[in-house]
């Protein structure tokens, strides 16, 4: 972050380390999406996956082409995640009003 830090030798921070972290987040998100039966928990998993994607964008753009396109992409991913969370949670709350449940397997009908 600062110019004078370059002297100190930041040795471990490279693209693979970022890819590893984003991989962990992605796999965790996948597990949450598949294993959990609570709709909100599944939304948490979606957030994790979106974050791993955004992190990948930012990392690639920093390490490979040093421009800001990836940052912009990450920004849009964050925006979309916010919109997704709002609508998704609204649907969950509506679903709960109708079914008294947030279990994913209760969501079997397209119509109330």
């Amino acid at each position, binding site marked *: 972050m600062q110019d004078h*830090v*370059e002297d100190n030798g930041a040795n471990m921070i490279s693209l693979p380390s970022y890819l590893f972290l984003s991989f962990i987040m992605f796999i965790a998100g*996948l597990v*949450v999406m598949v294993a959990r039966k609570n709709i909100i928990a599944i939304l948490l998993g979606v957030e994790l996956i979106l974050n791993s994607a955004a992190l990948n964008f930012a990392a690639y753009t920093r390490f490979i082409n040093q421009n800001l396109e990836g940052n912009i992409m990450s920004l849009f991913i964050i925006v979309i995640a916010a919109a997704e969370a709002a609508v998704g949670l609204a649907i969950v709350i509506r679903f709960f009003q109708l079914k008294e449940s947030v279990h994913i397997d209760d969501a079997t009908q397209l119509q109330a």
Partner: protein
Amino acid sequence: MFQDILFICSAILVIAGTLGVVFSKNLMRACTLLLGTLFGVAGLYAVLGADFLAASQLVIYAGGVIILMLFAVMLTGGSADKANKFGIEKIMGMGSVKTYVIAGLTVLVFSLTIMKLLASFLKGYQKLDELPAFTSTVDKIGTMLVTDHVLAFEISSILLLGALVGAAVIARPRRG
């Protein structure tokens, strides 16, 4: 050195938070731990020099999404017969051995494929300190948003408006 410390802290936060989200039996805690993950990601952005991105991550996730999630958990947590008064302990359907086994198998398959994909990427890249430092990204991002990416910018604003109205319409209480 600062960057190393910040990176290690953030990475620990991310990994711990992520594992917490996966294995926590309590949804409220899972949400809180997700907050930790998101802060960690913000820290990772900061290490990358993407200061605006980090701040956006904080504002949007910490300020908006997580509180929204907590609200949702609280509003849907109480199912009379299966949980206590506020649904903290026994929020239903947090997964069983069976589901975790299925998920584990899926993950195994998927991680193998990803590893195959990434194998060639994972060697021979520059370290962060060998790269030119990023100066401020704010004004550049601002310029790019209203020049090159203005269409995406406007569309995302429409998307947000749609999400706002849609969420309000979907969640509003109805008679009957």
